[in-house]
């Protein structure tokens, strides 16, 4: 197309050489080309995702209860009674908006993961806001979902501050193409959203080892709060996570999907949520563009009849990161640009 030629002329050339996927192309060539509109509700509504996952035997965080109507808001008290920790989410929320994590309850006072104290009244107000559609994608009425809190796997605990780290895997036509781990930190208020300041660690598809890490688009070497060296990060049960991401993509039928997985201490890998419009910062965290990998998958004219194991083997062979494979002490040239 004409735009491609244009891109080679402008200062965008170097981005293009790196195979960086831009917002416009993501929207036109991937999201709207591979994600049928009618499948969106499956991922935009966390309740529907949960039901789908249940049907396909995919583990998700335990559902404690749902509040659907305004007059049920009074039920919040009974719903959370006796719970030590839980989280409240809007079913149709996006970008982590409206997610309230209560990590501790003492004498009727609810403590958020960042230490903020909330009363039952505050909880009810939050639920009421969720129902009114304040956090939902299009402002439409929503339901509030109460979920059991996930406890981070021991091996990952030191890598995250307050929140639970999750793994984002981009799955394209059933192939996991790129992965990153998102670590919450003090700046991000315990949230694992990169635009709120969480640390993104690129993960080598082949090995599950860290490639490099970024925070607010800048390279970082260690976790800003815990001081843990991020290069040593290696995700346990990596092949299982890859399998799980493929299964998630297969059950939705979406061609270009962001799968968010967590490793629970007790229940192992589980699906946190799905995203039909996954962000682009994952490229920064990996120091690699998505385009070469996406094009490779696109080269299959038909969606190949490959089992999940075959697909995972394919991507582990072809999409291994050069940086991570060296496995020696990482060699960074932080901030120093040669060009």
């Amino acid at each position, binding site marked *: *197309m004409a*735009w*491609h030629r*244009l*891109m080679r002329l*402008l*200062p*965008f050339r*170097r*981005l*293009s050489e*790196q195979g*960086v996927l*831009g*917002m*416009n*192309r993501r929207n*036109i*060539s991937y999201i709207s*080309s591979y994600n049928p509109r009618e499948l969106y509700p499956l991922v935009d509504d966390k309740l529907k995702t949960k039901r789908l996952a249940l049907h396909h035997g995919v583990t998700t965080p335990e559902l404690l209860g749902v509040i659907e109507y*305004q007059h049920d808001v009074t039920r919040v008290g009974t719903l959370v009674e006796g719970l030590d920790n839980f989280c409240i989410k809007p079913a149709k929320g996006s970008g982590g*908006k409206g997610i309230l994590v209560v990590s501790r309850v003492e004498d009727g006072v609810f403590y958020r993961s960042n230490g903020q104290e909330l009363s039952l*009244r505050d909880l*009810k*107000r939050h639920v*009421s*806001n969720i129902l*009114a*559609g*304040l956090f939902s994608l299009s402002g439409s009425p929503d339901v509030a979902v109460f979920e059991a809190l996930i406890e981070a796997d021991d091996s990952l605990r030191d890598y995250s501050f307050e929140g639970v780290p999750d793994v984002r895997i981009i799955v394209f036509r059933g192939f996991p193409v790129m992965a990153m781990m998102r670590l919450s930190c003090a700046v991000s208020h315990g949230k694992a959203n990169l635009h*709120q300041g969480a640390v993104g660690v690129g993960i080598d598809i082949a090995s599950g080892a860290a490639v490099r890490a*970024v925070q607010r*688009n*800048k*390279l970082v070497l260690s976790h800003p709060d815990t001081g843990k060296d991020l290069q040593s990060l290696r995700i346990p049960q990596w092949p299982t996570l890859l399998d799980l991401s493929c299964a998630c993509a297969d059950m939705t039928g979406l061609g270009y999907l962001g799968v968010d997985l967590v490793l629970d201490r007790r229940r192992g890998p589980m699906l946190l949520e799905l995203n039909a419009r996954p962000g682009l910062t994952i*490229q*920064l965290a990996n*120091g*690699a*563009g998505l385009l070469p990998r996406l094009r490779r998958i696109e080269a299959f004219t038909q969606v190949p009849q490959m089992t999940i194991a075959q697909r995972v083997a394919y991507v582990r062979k072809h999409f291994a990161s050069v940086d991570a494979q060296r496995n020696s002490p990482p060699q960074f*040239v932080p*901030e*120093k*640009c*040669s*060009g």
Partner: protein
Amino acid sequence: MKTGRGPFYLLVTLLLITGSLLTAYRYAMFDVPWMPGEKRQIWSVEAQVDFIALGEPVKVSLAIPDSQPGFERVGERTASPGYGLAFVENNENNHGRRAEWSIREAQGRQTLYYQVEMLVDPDAAGAETAVEPPISRVRLDGPHATVVNLILERARERSADPYTLTRELIHEFNRQSQSASLLTQMKPRGAWLVDMLHMAGIPAREVQALNLEDGRRRQQVVNLLQVFEGENYQLFDMHSGKPGKQTNQLLWEYYSAPLLDIVGGRNSRLSFSMIEQEVPVNRMLEEGTFPAAQNLLDFSIHSLPLSEQALFKGILLIPVGVLIVSLLRIIVGVRTSGTFMPVLIAMAFIQTSLLTGLVGFILIVAAGLMIRSYLSRLNLLLVARISAVIISVIIMIAAFSVLSYQLGLTEGLKITFFPMIILAWTIERMSILWEEEGPKEVLTQGGGSLMVALFAYLVMSNDVVRHLTFNFLGLQFLFMALVLLIGNYTGYRLLELRRFQPMLGERA
């Protein structure tokens, strides 16, 4: 990617072609200039009729001109206190357009004025002046016939076509002064010339014209000979035989009817004064004096009543604003709160003027955010809360208006031009943003919106842009094509250069 892009590009091409053609058509056929400052030459000619009224009913009939080759009539007015006035178009009697004044009783010296504004337009085609008159059959006898035939014969030998024949006829008339005087004893030279041309089978007539010269007063019409050849004609001075210049000769009367006809008056006198004006075209367009559309193809806003035109002036600017928002969001990557909120804010700025608008906007949004932060503590349902914000915005606007009016700042009244519902939603969204992402994000998005609004305002308030969008409807098709093309843009956004900068530093 998978579906063919053929139909899409076909549609865009069609839109581009349609838009360009419509625009070019309007430019070429109506002479609407590209630039608003462009000027056109207009001749204002005033006819002054003086006469002494005899104390009885008075009827004055004055021949008045219409559009003709080289001139387009764009306006006319009269000053005639106490007189009834009618413009009569009497084509059946072949009297052309006439102004007819009438009064029951008038006594003493009377003065009537008629003023016409003629736009100099080389392309103008007047229907009436270019129609050749019927050839009358001329019957002569005796010595006159001999002389006429002699002159005609001589002239015919030395000429090639109607125009040269006319010239030679006039020369012959001058040369053979004795024969000529024989003829002019019977009827004037002009009538003979017309007769002789008719005998030669050439349509011709006597017309009365004005020589246009800037700042002249008390001018009289001159008699000219109009000779036709096919659809064209040429004017000749009847004594020198020189062809006249059409560019500064305005035909005033061309039906061989009396120039001025007065019943109930005497000592009538008709004189003309004229001035040349340079009038900016956009002023003419606004005043509606510009030649208006005549058929459906001449599709333009100017065929609407003036109040609707004013409305469309604003509406036709919206596509420009929308285009700018698309450009800034898709190509540059600016983040705004609310997709097209900036366009509405820009429209409000146009109404309020920039400074008032900016101050008003920031005041209202800041005050609204404060009120909203209190409302959020009240634990209200979303719809009710936004309604509350809307009402407080309206109260604030009313308060600001009254306050500024009391302080003598009438500028403050313009604050009412802001779209209130949009403001309320902006406040709500920014307030949520504040709670969720902190004040920094509010400043980023609010600043982004304001910046886009400012940019859109600057473009939309530009005179050239206003002139073009208002006068060239075809441009809307071009905007449409552009927006479609932008919607197909898969390249990088400018701000992505910065975003992905860390990736470039490494392996370049």
